[in-house]
């Protein structure tokens, strides 16, 4: 099989960049939301939970269109970003935002499960040892959720890597800017003679997804029964 063409390498590098930045940007908010869901009770929690899962449930094109309405050049946030010189519409940063939004629910679900698997008795023990909520979170809850966090990051990265509908709707297909691997693949499929390139990108996509899935499975399988306040 022929090696990747320059355009395919560009699309692949852009996809890695967009996915990594997208997942990294959604991580802090996902951690906060997952902790709220795992550790607190509040009025309207099911509604809040439903809203967080929306990007997973909505057709990706709808999510992309909502992003376009809000962050596009004529959108309320987009106009403000344009004014301060941080325009994201039709740029790689917009693709990263789309990736972040689409990966966010997977990250929240994985992190929530990870936080819930940490025995609260350990957090209570930490409290009696003088630790406040932040120290408990960073010294007990988060380290004990690390495997779940890595699994969530792997799944979210794979989801961001494969993102198509929201990205093409929001930021279109601009080579080197917003033409990520799935978009490049779609265009190769639609182009006569593009079968070879399409196959190469398909193999890359399968390889990345497989690696992420295996990492997530490994983390989740080996993470059980470690975070409870047993005798020791």
């Amino acid at each position, binding site marked *: 099989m022929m090696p990747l063409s320059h355009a395919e390498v560009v699309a692949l590098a852009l996809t890695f960049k967009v996915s990594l930045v997208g997942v990294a940007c959604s991580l802090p908010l996902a951690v906060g939301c997952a902790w709220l869901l795992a550790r607190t009770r509040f009025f309207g929690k099911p509604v809040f939970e439903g809203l967080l899962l929306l990007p997973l449930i909505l057709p990706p094109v709808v999510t992309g269109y909502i992003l376009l309405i809000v962050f596009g050049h004529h959108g309320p946030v987009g106009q403000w970003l344009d004014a301060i010189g941080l325009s994201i519409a039709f740029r790689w940063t917009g693709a990263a935002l789309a990736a972040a939004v689409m990966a966010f629910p997977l990250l929240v679900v994985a992190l929530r499960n990870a936080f819930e698997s940490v025995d609260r*008795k350990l957090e*209570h023990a*930490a409290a009696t040892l003088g630790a406040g909520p932040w120290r408990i979170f960073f*010294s*007990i809850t988060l380290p004990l959720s690390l495997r779940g966090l890595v699994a969530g990051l792997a799944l979210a990265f794979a989801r961001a890597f494969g993102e198509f509908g929201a990205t093409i709707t929001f930021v279109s297909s601009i080579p080197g800017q917003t033409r990520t691997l799935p978009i490049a693949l779609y265009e190769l499929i639609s182009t006569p003679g593009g079968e070879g390139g399409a196959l190469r990108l398909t193999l890359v996509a399968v390889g990345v997804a497989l690696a992420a899935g295996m990492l997530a499975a490994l983390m989740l399988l080996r993470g059980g029964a470690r975070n409870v306040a047993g005798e020791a």
Partner: protein
Amino acid sequence: MIALDLALQRGEFALELTLTSPARALALFGHSGCGKTSTLLAIAGLLRPRCGRISIGGTLLFDSAAHVDVPPARRGLGVVFQEARLFPHLNVRENLRYGAPRAATAGTFDDVVQLLELAALLRRRPGQLSGGQARRVAIGRALLRQPHALLLDEPLANLHREARAEVLAHLLALKRQFGLTTILVSHQPDEVTALADQVARIEDGRLVALEGIDAFKAAVAIPAMPLDAPGVRATG
């Protein structure tokens, strides 16, 4: 002085307890489910009473009338739970140091490590400890918090005979050396007579009696001490 006046509800179970004890070591004694652990958790700040007042050694920890509810982290208590609750991702040294104030001296750490014979265990993870060793580390961790009072929840429960003797001997040494105000929860009469100066007998969430050790021995059938450690009783 230990002063408790608290009412709390846990599902169907209601606890109403009022007692004042001058004892240095008070045992809350009763059968499983009588409310003694709930009382201990309320003192630790991990369970909020419906109303009442909790004061240990002159330090007010909770007073519903005065809207005082000191957070667990600031109660200054050393709590040893029944399941050691060591942090599984930290080794013994890190567990011991977790609650130690920054100003704590190396000497204090060494004293506690020596008293509880933990030197050989410092690099181990909690999963590599026996039940008795884990309990000793939990006691050391609570002590290094430099608390003004110690709360012990069934410190000898679920330990085999040798481990019970081992932990009890260390608790007695600790009592002699530190003389901390201690509240002990137990359903084992032998444990209570070995460690406490006064006993609050609790049944169904109510105080039945607050008595000295001699009266407690007379009231409760004490089984033969199932401990092998020579001199354990004498040192208590």
